[in-house]
């Protein structure tokens, strides 16, 4: 089947229905993903990105339905990462006269991946490449959105922005356009993607959106390298990116805990009740049962984080520790936080969680709360009050 997404522009990517762990085990893809590659039929036949290596044959088949692969003149590599460049070795074999275009960092990075001796032209922001007729590409470097080599490519015919990983979603779907997907699912996947991949780079996201607006390039379609393509609804994803990047969350709470024998879990339940008493929408996750990628996605919209762990070897438990490490790297800002947990003798987990919150740059709304062994009704009442107090601080003074 041919997918012409804009006149003379074809989606030639692959849908990976089976992948569940991405970037090693850093991102759980609940419903798989897509690797989007695009073929432009200009006087010069141009391929924008490729796909993950195991899908190279599928990419070549899709191209062959439209044009013999050996006729490809240009290949734009917007990003080095292997889920977009993995088919390059096979494509370069099938398209021996093709020339590659990418940033200087892309050239270095591709070499360090594939050690190929390929013709490569380095491009910078504002450089253009005529494909003949009414089609010209303009390149826009996008360093650290999300790797040093990252780049956007703009096609004037149809006003298509090939944004690579920006504005993407890990979502396997038989449709190609964002407006063909149920909006709640779509935006939840876009938020999970932003939170888990782009959140620490938020300042750069804001800068790049401003740069795009200032450039005056009219954009009618945003074609990312994962997930659905934005057309009439492109403004919605731009607005959401700007909002997420500004780190202006809502008065919602996310509560994450790890428990050994159930004491910390009981505390979490009482704190949760206190948050609800305060009128705060709260999501609660046992780190050993919940999906880490989903939790981080929820944290993007929430202004209050509560993390708890039993103490083990004078420290927090290992799976919450891994989660806290992940959270710190994502650099959430403008949020309040608090810690809790049960202990047997000396304790240690609560102080350790508080230390990570401080290092992350989050302010501690309440002093951490502890209970020895299994919390009694008085401890649980204290936890409930702790939740109420946190909730009141999250909502802020009456307006």
């Amino acid at each position, binding site marked *: 089947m041919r997918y012409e997404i804009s006149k003379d522009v074809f989606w030639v990517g692959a849908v990976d229905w089976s992948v569940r762990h991405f970037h090693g085990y850093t991102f759980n893809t609940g419903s798989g993903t897509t690797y989007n590659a695009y073929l432009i039929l200009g006087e010069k036949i141009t391929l924008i990105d490729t796909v993950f290596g195991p899908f190279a044959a599928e990419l070549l088949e899709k191209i062959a339905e439209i044009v013999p692969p050996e006729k490809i003149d240009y290949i734009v590599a917007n990003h080095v990462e292997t889920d977009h460049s993995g088919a390059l070795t096979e494509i370069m074999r099938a398209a021996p006269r093709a020339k590659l275009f990418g*940033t200087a960092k892309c050239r270095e990075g591709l070499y360090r991946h594939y050690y190929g001796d390929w013709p490569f032209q380095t491009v910078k922001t504002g450089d253009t490449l005529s494909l003949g007729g009414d089609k010209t590409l303009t390149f826009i470097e996008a360093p*650290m959105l999300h790797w040093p*080599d990252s780049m956007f490519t703009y096609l004037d015919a149809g006003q298509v922005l090939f944004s690579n990983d920006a504005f993407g979603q890990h979502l396997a779907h038989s449709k190609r356009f964002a407006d063909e997907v149920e909006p709640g699912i779509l935006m939840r996947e876009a938020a999970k993607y932003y939170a888990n991949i782009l959140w620490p780079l938020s300042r750069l996201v804001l800068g790049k959106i401003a740069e795009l607006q200032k450039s005056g390039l009219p954009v009618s379609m945003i074609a990312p390298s994962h997930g659905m393509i934005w057309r009439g609804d492109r403004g919605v994803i731009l607005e959401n990116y700007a909002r997420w990047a500004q780190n202006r969350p809502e008065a919602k709470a996310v509560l994450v805990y790890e428990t050994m024998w159930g004491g910390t879990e009981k505390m979490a339940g009482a704190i949760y009740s206190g948050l609800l008493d305060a009128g705060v929408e709260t999501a609660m996750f046992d780190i050993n049962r919940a999906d880490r990628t989903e939790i981080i996605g929820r944290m993007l919209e929430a202004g209050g984080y509560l993390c708890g762990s039993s103490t083990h070897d004078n420290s927090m438990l290992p799976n919450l520790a891994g989660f806290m490490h992940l959270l710190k790297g994502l650099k959430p800002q403008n949020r309040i936080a608090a810690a809790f947990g049960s202990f047997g003798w000396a304790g240690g987990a609560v102080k350790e969680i508080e230390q990570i919150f401080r290092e992350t740059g989050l302010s501690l709304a309440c002093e951490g709360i502890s209970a020895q062994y299994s919390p009694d009704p008085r401890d649980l009442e204290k936890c409930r009050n702790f939740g109420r107090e946190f909730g009141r601080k999250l909502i802020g003074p009456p307006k």
Partner: protein
Amino acid sequence: MSKYRCTVCGYIYDPEQGDPSAGIKPGTEFESLPDTWVCPECGVGKDMFEKV
């Protein structure tokens, strides 16, 4: 002479070293770097740096 850190990747600009990869001579203050200078590791602009 003050060192500056890239807030994105952690690279430290040391004015005593300069940035030979971009033709910046040793002894060049961070403030004197051209506006077009970017982090040699990750490519972001001067505005993403903070004083160490």
